[in-house]
């Protein structure tokens, strides 16, 4: 980076608008006194809170010819805020003796505006060069392009040439384009230079402009040389377009303006009209070769040139949760803007934050070089001697035409347990509960493993109960069953007559079945008698003891008036048959006709029950 003399530095803030307070502009010149054949380098720096900053507006400079010599921008992101700084470099060539003034240079963003203070530069006579030291350069080998209002057979008054330092390069390898503007006559006003059109090529200006004299075909020219570094991004044949210069010349005149004669010089001034002339260089071809695939390392960073790699930490001792800044610096010649960040090794003991990179370029000896600085915040997770393994990166060296791997030295940081009074680790809010008295909370971490993982028995059983599914219907069924039983039992207790009435037929038929199985005819008759008496007593609500057929008939006719007489007659017939068998057993076999009697009863009782239900 050029070391300016910093003879004058002015930084003036612009308007006091809220946003404008951060927009600023400053201007520096490398000297405030300059010889007529020398040049002044003006650096204008614009800084602001946004990534894209406008170009400064240079005022018209009466006493100087101005040439742009490139711009250098740096952007930084800090805590999510963007700030950028752009330095524009201009080369000023004095045109007249005396006091020259660079008027305030301004820049504006929206309503915000800032400007510099005026800068005064004294232009003095150039000292006579020592004998034999005239800076005359050799004439260009190739016939220059352009035309001049010169005499036939003579070299043109102005001309422009362009040339490359090499015709074949690798992708991203630097080539130098040199454009020379030759002028053998005084120019009216500043010549307007239009750089060549370039596609697929990144450019970097290579200041400063060089001015010297050269002879060509016996004519002396003032030469202005502009160099540009080219970094092709695409392979194949790239065309470098024509560089053009638009200038105003005095038309041919009879009087020689360089004559030593006073009258010639007097009358030659301002008498002839200006002529606008545009001259262009020949287009050039640049062969761009792809980088070899064979042998390309996995950690190839995309860099082409020659680089070195270094790393350091801002502290050798830290503590858990306390950030350590790791700075990785890539330095060397090449297009640093196309260089990727070197990959970090695995750092399990560190919490690694996103890197922040900045590029600083220098242009010395027609070579773009500089450094790329990557800053990474590391927060140790654990205490101990924590190592940061070597960081590696590979680049392609076009001189050796091979990939080169470089690496940093291993670093070690001694990490102590965290300070309980220090801020917690980034991104984590420590619990507010203070440590107990006498204890010092160093750091918080997850609690250790469960050494004997097991599912407690209570949990297993409860989950088993939860998964029982349809079995859970059992208690409900039990409850409803018990409730039904209890209800029935209650009803029995509340209405014994009704229970007897409803159960009469079933009890009678059951007794008949018992009687059928009885071998003793007398006992069987007694059972059948009990069945008939019991049935009629239950149905009529009378006690079985003392029930007579007459009473039965009375009650049946009273309570069941619709009962047919044959049914009553049948009852009476069976009643009497049973009485007869009970009190006067038949001679012979007592079982004779007993089955028939039982069947008649079994047929009668259901029919009679149906009648009772009517």
């Amino acid at each position, binding site marked *: 980076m050029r070391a300016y003399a910093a003879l004058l530095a002015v930084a003036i803030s612009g308007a006091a608008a809220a946003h404008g307070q951060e927009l600023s502009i400053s201007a520096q010149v490398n000297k405030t006194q300059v010889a007529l054949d020398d040049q002044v380098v003006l650096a204008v720096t614009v800084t602001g809170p946004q990534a894209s900053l406008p170009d400064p507006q240079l005022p018209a400079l009466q006493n100087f010819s101005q040439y742009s010599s490139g711009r250098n921008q740096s952007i930084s992101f800090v805590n999510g805020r963007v700030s950028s700084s752009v330095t524009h470099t201009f080369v000023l060539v004095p045109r007249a003796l005396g006091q020259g003034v660079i008027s305030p240079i301004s820049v504006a963003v929206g309503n915000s505006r800032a400007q510099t203070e005026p800068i005064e530069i004294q232009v003095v006579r150039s000292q006579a060069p020592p004998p034999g030291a005239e800076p005359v350069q050799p004439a260009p080998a190739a016939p220059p392009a352009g035309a001049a209002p010169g005499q036939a057979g003579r070299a043109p008054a102005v001309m422009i040439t362009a040339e490359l330092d090499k015709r074949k390069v690798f992708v991203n390898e630097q080539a130098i384009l040199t454009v020379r503007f030759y002028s053998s006559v005084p120019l009216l006003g500043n010549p307007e230079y239009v750089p060549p059109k370039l596609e697929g090529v990144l450019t970097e200006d290579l200041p400063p402009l060089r001015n010297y004299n050269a002879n060509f075909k016996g004519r002396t020219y003032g030469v202005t040389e502009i160099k540009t570094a080219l970094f092709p991004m695409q392979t194949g044949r790239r065309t470098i377009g024509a560089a053009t210069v638009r200038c105003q010349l005095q038309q041919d005149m009879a009087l020689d303006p360089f004559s030593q004669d006073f009258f010639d010089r007097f009358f030659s001034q301002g008498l002839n009209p200006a002529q606008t002339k545009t001259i262009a260089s020949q287009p050039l071809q640049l062969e761009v070769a792809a980088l070899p695939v064979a042998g390309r390392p996995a950690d190839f960073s995309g860099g082409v040139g020659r680089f070195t790699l270094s790393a350091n930490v801002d502290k050798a001792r830290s503590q858990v949760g306390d950030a350590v800044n790791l700075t990785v610096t890539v330095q060397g010649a090449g297009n640093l803007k196309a260089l990727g960040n070197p990959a970090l090794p695995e750092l*399990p003991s560190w919490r690694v934050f996103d890197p922040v990179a900045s590029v600083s370029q220098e242009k010395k000896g027609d070579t773009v070089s500089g450094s790329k600085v990557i800053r990474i915040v590391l927060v140790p997770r654990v205490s101990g001697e924590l190592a940061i393994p070597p960081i590696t990166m590979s680049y392609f060296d076009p001189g050796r035409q091979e990939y080169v791997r470089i690496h940093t030295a291993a670093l070690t940081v001694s990490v102590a347990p965290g300070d309980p009074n220090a801020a917690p680790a980034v*991104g*984590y*809010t420590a*619990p507010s509960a203070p440590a107990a008295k006498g204890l010092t909370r160093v750091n*918080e*971490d*997850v*609690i*250790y*493993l*469960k*050494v*004997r*993982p*097991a*599912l*407690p*028995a209570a*949990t*297993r*059983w*409860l*989950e*088993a*109960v*939860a*998964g*029982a*599914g349809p*079995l*859970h219907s*059992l*208690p*409900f069924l*039990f*409850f409803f069953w*018990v*409730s039904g*039983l*209890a209800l029935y039992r209650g009803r029995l207790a509340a209405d014994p007559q009704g229970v007897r009435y409803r159960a009469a037929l079933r009890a009678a038929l059951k007794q008949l079945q018992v009687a059928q199985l009885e071998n003793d005819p007398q006992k069987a008759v007694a059972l059948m008698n009990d069945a008939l008496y019991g049935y009629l007593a239950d149905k009529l609500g009378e006690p079985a003891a003392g029930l007579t057929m007459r009473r039965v008939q009375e009650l049946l006719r009273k309570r069941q008036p619709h009962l047919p007489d044959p049914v009553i007659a049948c009852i009476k017939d069976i009643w009497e048959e049973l009485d007869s068998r009970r009190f006067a057993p038949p001679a012979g076999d007592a079982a004779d006709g007993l089955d028939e009697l039982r069947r008649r009863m079994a047929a009668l009782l259901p029919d009679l029950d149906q009648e009772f239900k009517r």
Partner: protein
Amino acid sequence: MIPAYLALTLAAALAFTAPSATTSPNGGRHVGPDGHDALSEGQRLYDAGDYKAAAGWYGQAVARERRNADLHYNLGNALFKDGRTGPAIASYQRAFSIRPRDPDIRQNLDFALRRAGENLVPPGVPPLLFIAFHLFSERELSGLHWLACWLALLLAGLFVWKGSRRETLLPWTAAAWLLWLVLGGWWLALRLTTPQRSGVIVSASAEIRSGPGDNFSVSFTAPEGRRVQILSDSGEWLEIGMLKEGVKGWIAAAAVEPI
């Protein structure tokens, strides 16, 4: 006789549904595919700082025994130490859903959640109330509720059947029904307040879009580890909602680990 019958039925039901008394199908050992004891190997790797490998072992153990809260907890520890906060929170959350009263599980889940900008105890809820409400897991509460149900119905049946002993049975029956009611209400409340489908965001900065596809605009982003409710799915996209923020949107299914 009836109570004896009911008790016998209950015991038979539990014997039919209860799992083995051992902690794993291998009698307490979690043997990996190559014969190593998964737990011992996982612990050894964890102690050696190889958290990724430890997580692999614990993942195998969890796959064989999904209802073991301790295994989920250990898996969460290994994932967390490996820097995978989202999957770690998912594992801790599973452990918490199985055994929420374990203080270690609560502590580590809360610790990991705070990394994702959340807290285990919702803002405004007294911590003690939260701990009491989550004393039992949902399945444990379900089991307790059914046990109370069996007890209440048994005592109610006795109360109805044994008319002569109703004075003695009345307070016990009333207490059992009250217990059933309380546990049933607790279980219902826990079910209603716990999303039936939930998940954890496991990608570093997940983009939640307005529809199920990359062609829909990004509505908002969510950090890794944020717990979300899964509302529906459509192919490889899930519709998620975040109750705390009151927003919902669609996210790639791969960015969410269901719990």
